[in-house]
Every structure is written in structure tokens, then in C-alpha cells.
């Protein structure tokens, strides 16, 4: 029954970016032991180097260079296709920029622990694996690989209560919701007798036509999986942790987490939910579509409206992050209509890529503003920033425009594709609410710009160091270039399909 697979059957080359990253991270973990405390910059550089190597390979794969075969790998646990490749690029990009943002922050805060980078990279691996899983168990493992380092990272400013508190909250709630995920997976296994996503969908076809009690199990299983993943991406009503954790965690961690956790969560969601669409349809519409729609609506409305009332930049960005999960959920919901699956996945990935640059960039600005004791990030602290630090104000304005979705920025392109997918999928209500809430979002994003440019004040900013400047430069350039030349993104996403592998 058990065969020992030969190396050639593993198709291991297809997972090269993850393997490289895993190797590099493991070496880094050991190497860090020998790096003295005052030279942790070396650790950061090594981590950056590892990510760069992995990112280059991932880019090559995404651009169509054959490294390993496309298709299943590692005995059907792993799947390598364009979707995997693009998720890899997104996750690795956010890791790259995340490291750039982190170094100075921790230097300033006098936290000198090399494990930080290893943890960050393990978390990245988790996100990458979530997009590449073909098996529910893999998804669960990947989710934990993504989450546990994040719990730890949140606590990295240990003596500060807020940081500890956020880590604890995140951990408790994360564990709680993981329970739902596991329960859902169990139910699915109970209904279908397999963990294999393709197998589940194939079995589901029969079940839908058959006995109603088995349907109950199956569908409830899906519902609980949605809950588990919904928690990870911060969808309402599973969003409670997000503002507290985003505010409490060290800002670079927040920056990294806000993007990576979403990437992983949505990648898995698309894998689990959208992949089966060609098989399981009821009147061309997946049964979970209504559910995702409801969640998306709640998320959009609550995220955007509550963000208005925030007076703290990090907290505002946390709610904004909830709102953006709502837009991504629109894409997922669109995937529930037959024939739209690929388009929905593409639009979600484009959105994620755009969001990666913009959101990390926005948090990088917060890093540049924030004092060591977590103060200095009130919205009012931004007043007059255009006078004291015009460059910083300009890039912040750019990020705010992009988050609002103003043409010429990456955010607009992402929204455009997501709304287009929704309309093609006949989800006009969602698209309309999406557009309207975007208008609402302008209220709080532009308030930042108003504070910076039209209010008097002399805010203090932290001295900018080269790595932070690089981070700001890369994110700003990414936001602008992808906004003006969306070609780069659409080209990457073009070959993305989320169909079953037979």
C-alpha cells in the first residue's frame, strides 16, 4: 500500500522556491547563533539574500520558465501551477519588503534577536504552502506554519504590554478558529472519505444528488472551513482580533502580517472553494456563494465605516485591512459562478499584489513616524508632515490614493479587476456596494492626506535609514508602476487557473 516514491516522481523542482527558502531559513537559524548581538544586521542581510534567491526563482517560474513540471507534486500533496507561482511571488515580495522595514525598527527599539527573520520567513513559507496545497491536511499544516510565527512575532516587543497582549489575543483566537477549521475538515472527511480537495469535489457531486443527511455534513464542513479561513483573512464577523493585534504588534510585523496572512488565507480559500466549481454546480452557482456574499457585504460595510471613526493610524489601517478583505471576498464570491472561477482567481491575485506594495508601504510610513514607545501614530500627529518631510508625505499620499483606488495607482487596477469579475459573475449588488464603500473609504484615507497637506503642524519623524528608504522607494514605485502599467500584473496573472488537476 505504501510506496516509497522515487525522487523523479516527487516533482520536487516545482517547489524549488519553497525548498530554497526552507533551506535558507534553517541555515539562517543556525547561523544566527554565531552572529554576535551587535551585528544582527548580518542576519537581516542573509535573510534578505535568501529571500532574493527564492524570489528570483519564483519570478522565473511565474514568468513561464520551466523549473519542474506544472502539476501535482509530492504525492499529490502539493500542486504547482501558475496560481502557486504567483502566490509565491506575492508572499516573497512581502517578505522582502517586510525585512527591509523591520531592521531599523528593531534596531531603534533595541530588540536584538536574530530569530525574528527566521520566524518571518517560516511564516512566509506557510503562506506559500497554503496556495500550493492540494490536500486539506496540508492546508491546515500550512495555516499553522503561517500563524504560529506570527503569534510570536506579535510579541516581539516583549516588555511592552500592548505587544504581549496582542500576541496572546491573536494566539487564543487563532487557536479557537483553527478548531473550526479542523472541525470543518473532519466533517468533509466524514462526508467524502478523503482529504484530497479534488477527491472531495468529485465525491461532492454524487452527494449533492444523493442523500440529504450526507449533504448536511458536507455543507456544514464547508461552512466551518470558511469560518477558519475567514478568521485568518479578518473577515467580519471574525475580525475582532484584528484592530487590537494590528495596533499592539510591532509595526513591521503588522505590515508583514497584514499582507502575508491575507495572501495565505485567500490562496487557500480560492483553492478549496473555487477549484471545484467546474464540477459542483447548482444552477451554475456554487452553494457557498450566498454565504461568502453575506460575509463580504458585512466586511465591506463594517470595515469601511468603522475605519472612519478611528483616530489612530494603525487602528485605522487595521479596519482598512478588514475592508480590503471585503474586496477580496468579492472576488472569491465571483468565483462561485460557473465560468468565472479563473477570472476571479486572477482578479484576487492582482488585487493582492497591488495591496502588498501599497499596504506595506503605508505601514512603512507608520514605522517612519512611530516613536519607540508606540506613540506618534495618531492621525493628528500627521498634521503638517508635508512641510517637515515632504517626501514621506508624498509617498503616504500615494499609498492613501492607492488604497482608495484612485486611477493611476495599483489599488485602482486591483479594484477594477475585482469589480469586473463581480459584474461578469452577475453579482451586481456586491460590485455596487464595493464601489460605494470605496467612496466611503475615500473619507478616511483622504483625511490622512488632508492632515498632511492642509493642516499646520510640525510632526516629528524618525531619522530615515537606507533600508527603510529602500522599502518606501520600492513600495511607492511598485504602487505607481503597477498603477500606470498594469500590464506587469495582468501578464503574471494571465495563466492563472484554479481548476482540478486530474
Amino acid at each position, binding site marked *: 500500500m505504501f510506496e516509497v516514491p522515487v525522487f523523479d516522481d516527487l516533482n520536487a523542482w516545482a517547489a524549488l522556491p519553497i525548498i530554497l527558502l526552507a533551506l535558507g531559513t534553517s541555515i539562517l537559524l543556525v547561523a544566527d547563533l554565531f552572529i554576535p548581538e551587535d551585528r544582527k544586521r548580518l542576519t537581516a542581510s542573509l535573510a534578505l539574500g535568501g529571500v532574493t534567491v527564492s524570489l528570483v526563482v519564483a519570478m522565473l517560474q511565474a514568468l513561464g520558465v520551466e523549473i519542474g513540471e506544472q502539476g501535482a507534486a509530492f504525492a499529490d500533496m502539493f500542486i504547482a501551477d501558475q496560481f502557486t507561482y504567483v502566490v509565491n511571488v506575492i508572499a516573497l515580495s512581502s517578505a522582502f519588503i517586510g525585512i527591509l522595514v523591520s531592521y531599523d525598527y528593531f534596531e531603534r527599539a533595541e530588540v536584538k534577536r536574530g530569530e525574528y527573520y527566521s520566524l518571518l520567513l517560516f511564516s512566509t513559507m506557510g503562506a506559500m504552502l497554503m496556495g500550493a496545497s492540494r490536500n486539506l491536511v496540508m492546508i491546515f499544516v500550512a495555516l499553522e506554519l503561517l500563524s504560529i510565527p506570527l503569534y510570536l512575532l506579535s510579541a516581539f516587543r516583549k516588555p511592552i504590554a500592548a505587544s504581549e497582549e496582542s500576541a496572546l489575543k491573536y494566539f487564543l483566537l487563532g487557536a479557537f478558529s483553527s478548531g473550526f477549521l479542523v472541525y470543518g475538515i473532519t466533517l468533509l472527511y466524514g462526508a467524502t472519505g478523503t482529504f484530497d480537495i479534488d477527491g472531495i469535489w468529485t465525491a461532492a457531486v454524487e452527494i449533492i444528488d444523493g442523500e440529504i443527511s450526507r449533504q448536511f455534513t458536507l455543507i456544514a464542513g464547508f461552512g466551518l472551513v470558511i469560518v477558519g479561513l475567514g478568521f485568518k483573512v479578518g473577515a467580519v464577523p471574525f475580525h*475582532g482580533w484584528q484592530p*487590537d493585534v494590528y495596533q499592539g504588534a510591532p509595526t513591521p510585523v503588522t505590515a508583514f502580517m497584514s499582507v502575508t496572512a491575507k495572501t495565505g488565507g485567500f490562496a487557500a480559500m480560492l483553492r478549496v472553494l473555487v477549484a471545484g466549481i467546474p464540477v459542483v454546480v447548482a444552477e451554475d452557482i456554487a452553494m457557498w456563494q450566498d454565504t461568502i456574499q453575506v460575509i463580504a457585504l458585512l466586511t465591506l460595510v463594517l470595515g469601511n465605516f468603522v475605519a472612519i471613526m478611528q483616530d489612530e493610524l494603525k487602528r485605522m489601517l487595521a479596519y482598512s485591512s478588514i475592508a480590503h478583505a471585503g474586496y477580496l471576498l468579492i472576488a472569491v464570491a465571483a468565483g462561485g459562478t460557473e465560468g468565472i472561477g479563473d477570472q476571479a482567481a486572477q482578479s484576487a491575485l492582482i488585487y493582492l499584489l497591488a495591496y502588498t506594495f501599497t499596504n506595506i508601504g503605508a505601514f512603512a510610513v507608520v514605522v517612519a513616524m512611530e516613536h519607540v514607545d508606540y506613540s506618534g501614530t495618531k492621525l493628528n500627529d500627521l498634521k503638517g508632515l508635508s512641510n517637515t518631510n515632504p517626501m514621506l508625505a508624498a509617498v503616504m499620499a500615494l499609498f492613501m490614493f492607492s488604497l482608495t483606488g484612485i486611477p493611476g495607482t495599483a489599488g485602482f487596477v486591483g479594484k477594477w479587476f475585482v469589480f469586473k469579475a463581480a459584474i461578469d459573475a452577475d453579482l451586481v449588488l456586491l460590485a455596487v456596494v464595493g464601489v460605494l464603500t470605496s467612496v466611503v473609504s475615500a473619507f478616511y484615507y483622504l483625511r490622512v492626506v488632508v492632515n498632511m497637506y492642509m493642516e499646520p503642524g510640525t510632526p516629528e519623524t524618525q531619522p530615515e535609514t537606507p533600508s527603510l528608504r529602500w522599502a518606501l522607494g520600492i513600495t511607492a514605485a511598485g504602487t505607481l508602476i503597477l498603477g500606470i502599467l498594469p500590464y506587469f500584473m495582468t501578464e503574471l496573472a494571465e495563466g492563472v487557473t484554479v481548476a482540478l488537476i486530474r
Partner: protein
Amino acid sequence: MENFVTGVSLLIFIPLIGLLINLFFGKRLGERGVGLVAVGASFLTFIVSLLLWAALADMNYEATIVNMPIFTDWISIPSAGVDIPWQFRVDTLSVTMMLVVTGVGSLIHLYAVGYMHGDERFPRFFVYLNLFLFFMLILVTGNNFLMMFVGWEGVGLCSFLLIGFWFDRSQHHETDSTVGWYNSNAARKAFIVNRIGDFGLLLAMFLIWWTFGTLDYYKPQEDVHVHFEEEEAPVFSIEGLEEGAEEEYEDVTALSSRAGQIGVFTQTEIWFEEGGHEIEVGPWTLDFETVILLITLFILLGATGKSAQIPLFVWLPDAMAGPTPVSALIHAATMVTAGLYLMTRSNSMFHHAEFTSFIVTMIGISTAFVAGFIALGQWDIKKVLAYSTVSQLGFMVTAIGLGAYAAAIFHLVTHAFFKALLFLASGSVIHGVEHGHHHVHEHGHDVHHEEAFDPQDMRNMGGLAARMPLTYWTFVIGGLALAGVFPFAGFWSKDEILADSFVVGFEDGLVKGYLALAVLLLAAAFTGFYTWRLIRLTFHGAPRTEAAGHAPESVWTMTVPLLLLAIGSTLAGFLNIPDGFPLLGSLFGEHELTLWLEESVIHAHAGEFNFLLALLATGVALGAIAVAHNIYSPANVDDVREAGDPLERDTQTASIFALSNAKLYWDETYYQYIVFPFQRASRFLGITLDWNLWHDFFHNNIIRDGFQGASELISYPLDRQVIDRGFLGIARSIQAAAGRLRTVQTGYVRTYALSVLFGAVLVVVVILLPVIRDLLGV
């Protein structure tokens, strides 16, 4: 010589180069250099026009279409079947216009060098003048309506710029800065009024495009001479092409009629010949006659704007706020004839549109009459000439309406000479009086004259004949030409129009002929009267002001053009001596201009000379002059500054004079019934509706407040109160139920966990809804 036809593109390059030089180096070149460049460019275009004339004569007057080098494909969208080339058309009509524009234009350029001497924006003035020349030549040389329209709008722009040239000051009230508004308002008025006409022209172009699928007058492969009755072969060959093209566009019904192989005018003739063509215009199917009627009416609307006809003539008198050379060049000799040119160019359409022709005639004669009447009572020397221009344009438009295209162009040419002459001479007078005024001031007497002194007001003149003899005599020649006295130019051209109206009335028996004849004779009498009144008031008698008494004769750059134009005004009439006129006919040839124009204007025809009518017209003119001579005798006009016009003093004519002096309250009527209601409406829309209601009320009260209310509602009561408190409440109730569970350090985590639980329930319920419904059998 033949090959020179391709040099037509020089016509627009030369003024372009001239204006660019003056634009970039004008300040450095100085007045002399600027003048040399501008006048040089103008004279060069005149020489090019002459060469084109010669080239055309070499080719037996055959119309030629010239592609412009490097710029042939102007607008080309193959997928939509749009192809509008940038092509020049050299035929007898366009060459006539070129000669008038560049010939008269050159003299006026030269004159302007003297007139504008010392102006702070001297280079800019000549940039504008060359720009005008550039656009005017595009207008007359283009081979399609769109090129014509480019020129049309361009000259409108130049007109606007030049009327408002002294936008910051008044010509005569240098101390009073508010008077500058008068100039810029006049410019705006001209622009806005013309916009109405342009709107009509645009509609005409759209309709032409829709109907014919092309805007080209004629296609290169066509022969203009083809008259279908006589030679049918080319028509069939062209139709063959059309059928071939039709197959190409088989399923595009809209394009089915747009073969695009045949120009607009030939197509018009063919379809009228065949009869029974129908055009689908939107939801309606119109027969071809109706479409042509609409097109011609729209063109007419355009022409009433540019050529200052009723109802749009009101801008032209105000346009006299511009410098006098501008009035002469743009607002008398060239630009205002663009409408005439356009209608003559479209004679194939107007010839077949009976109703439009009637309307054209009515507009022409009423304009000729009304403007002539208003001219009787003006004090401003340029205003008199402006209304006279409007009146003469009315004559030409009448000729178009009567189908006498050659007569219209003939009058256009002669009028260009004598009206340019009159304007330039009046400019010389104004210049002289102004200098006299300065002279008086410098010498310190008459100090209380400091306030408004208007050198254009004829009441301030008198006795200038002695001070400015050259100006006086040239003015008299121009005046006699304008009045239509034998043998000056105006006599011949005006007589031809009258003769044509006689033919149309008495031989064809059409009402418009009788009406035209009667009204034009009356208008001719007005012409003689106001012309001589002008000469009497300005030049005869004794000077009525010190300024007039000290007016010097103008410099040579101003008087030489006067002399040349005076010669032109005397001789231009011999271009088109009518049939069988003794002596002169054999001397200068008969119907030269008409024969020449017939090469390109299909429906041009020679008028029949009517000796009695000529005698009658001359009698009327001379009679009017004689009457004016007596009424405005030096004895009567010496006290005109205090006692007013002799007509005003006579109780029987006082009210008529008042009506004429008030310009028939034409502007006031427009203001009362159009401008004011329009302003009220826009104020209502702008202030009340948009600002107060939409912006203030709707945006602030409904959108902003509602929005804030909604977000506050969702954030505070909903998220914090309902959701947070709700969960807290649930938590508490669970606490109570569980009998005081241990208090955890942060109650919030539990809240969030509960929220997750609640969400999970929600998700499971929603996702199971269909199944549950199935279970319950609902």
C-alpha cells in the same frame, strides 16, 4: 506656368513663416523689421496668387486639386470610412478670393505699418494680421467643408483677437481704464454671435456628411464642367464606381449611400437630375429636396453670422472697436465675405433650393434696408461705414438669393476695393484728428477739452478737405463708388444685381425679384444719402473743433494704399462690363469676370444689361447725393455740435432720425428678449439650482450629513453598542447562567471568540439554508 499650381501651399506657408518670425523675434526686430516681415509675407502671397492666376489661365481655367506635401492624409479612419484629405482647390472662384484677400490685404498691411506706429503691441498686431491671412487663405483654398471650417473658425479667432486688440484701454480715452471694457466686450460679442452661426454651419456639415459620406467639394477625378444633360458618360462611369463601393459596405446600411467617389456638389447635381432620392436621417426618411433645403438653411445661418446679416449682424458695428486697418481688412473686405464665398461655392445646392433662395433674398434685402437706414443717423464715422458694409453685404446676399452668383462675387470684389478704401481713408481722418487733438493739447490751449474727445465723431470734424486733400479725394472716389455712380466700380456691380432682380421679377415672374428690386433701389438711395452726409460732415465747411483745424495729412505708408485702392475702386468695375455696353465693352471685354467664374461656379450666369434700369439707379444715387448735399450744406452743419443733425431739427423727420440714431433699438430688443431672459435662466440654474439647492442643500444636508449620520450610526450605536454590547450582554448572560465563571483578565478576547462563534453559526446557517429548506420541504 502650369506646374505652378502646386505652389498653392505656399499661400499658407508664407504667412505662417511671417507670423512665426514676428512671434519669436518681433520684440528684437523693431517696428521696421516687423513691418517688413509682415508686409513682405503679405505681398509674397499676393504674388503667389497672381502666379496661380496665370497658371490657371494656362490650363484653360480648369480646376485643379492640389495635395499638400507631407500632410495629405489629414483625417483618415479607414475602418469608419472617414477620409478627409488636406487638399487645396485652385479654381477661378478660389483664385478670385485669393487675389482679393492678398491684394487688398497687402495694401492694408502696408497701411497698418503707419497706422499702428508707436503702439506698444506693434509686433503682436502683425502676428495677428498674418495669422488672419493664414486662416483666410485656408478658408478660400480648401477643397472640403472641414478645411473651410478650420479657416472659418480661425478667422473668427483672429477677428476676436483683433477687435479686442486694445483690450486694456480705449483708443481715445487713454486716461479712463474702464473704457477698455468696451473693446473686449465688442470682441466677445462678435465671438458669441458668430458661435450661433457656426452652430448652423456645423449642423450643415454633419448633414452633408450624413447624406454624401464626404465633405469634399469635388473629388480630384471629377471634371467640374460636366453637365449631365449634355455629357452623360462620365456620370455613368462615376456611378459604376459607386456601385462597386456599395458592395464593399453591403451590410453597413448607413454607409450604403456613401460611395465616397464623388464630391458633394456633383452628387447633388446627379441626384437632382435623377430625382426621387431619399435619405434616412435618424427616424425620418426625407426626400433629397428636403435634405438640401435643411443643409442650405443651416449654411445660411452660418453665413448670417460671419457675413453679418439679419438676425446676426449686431456684432459687426461693435467690431469697429478694433484698430481701423482691422475694420478695413477683416470687417469690410475679406472675412465678412466668407459667408458669400461659402454660399457661392455651394451654388449647386442653393440653385436647387427654391425656398432657401427666397429666404436668402428676404434676409439680404431686409439687411440691406435696415442697415442702410441705421447708417443714416450715426455720428461715428466708422459706425456709418460699418452699417454701410452690412447693407452692401445685404446686396450681395440678395444676389445669391436671386441666383446671380457672378453678380454677388463681382460686388464682393468691387466692395472689397471701395470699402477698404473708405475705411482706410476714415482711419486716416481719425488719425489726423487725433494728432490734431494732441497737437492742440501740447500747445496748451483749449484746456477744458481734457475730458472725452472722440476723434471718430463726425460732429468734431468738418473742413478736413483742405487739411487732408489726398484723403479727401480718395474718400470721394470711394464714396462715389459706394453710392454706385458711373463709372466707378460700385455702379457696375450694383447695377448687375439690380438687373438680375429685374430679370427675376419681370421675366421669371417671381415675387422675390420684385421685392428685391424695390427694396434695393431704396437701399441704394440710402447709400447715396449717408455717403454724402458723411463726406459733407467730415470734409466740407469749416472745422468745428480745434483738433480738426490742426489735423495733418497722414504719412506715405497710409496714403499710398489709399491711392492704389482709389485706382482699384475706379477701375474694378471694368472687370465685368455688361453685354453690349457701348465703347467700354469693346475696350475691356464683356462679362470677363462672369465668364471666368463660370469655370468653377456652375450656376453662374451673366446678367442682362438694362439701360433704363442703370439710368434709374444712377439717378436715384445722384438724387440722394444731391439731397444730402443740400441738407448738409455748411450753413446747416456748422452748429451741428450744439443743435444736432439737420434732420433732427426738422420736426417732421426728427423721430425718423431718432429711430435711425438708436439703431432701431435692435440691440436693446435682443437684450430685452434674449440676453436678459437667458441670463436670468442661467442665474437660476447656476445659483439657485446648482449652488443653493444642489451644492448647499443636497450635498451638505443630504449627502454629507446623511453620510456622517450613517457612519456614526454604524460605528457607535451599531458596532459598539449593538455588536460589542450585544456580545458583552451575551457574555454576561452566559456568565450569570454559568454561575459566576472566573473573570478572565481581558474580557475582550472572549468577546471576539464569541463573535467568531456567532459568525460560525451564521455561516453554517446561511450555507445550509437550501438544504434546510429542502428538508422542511419549503
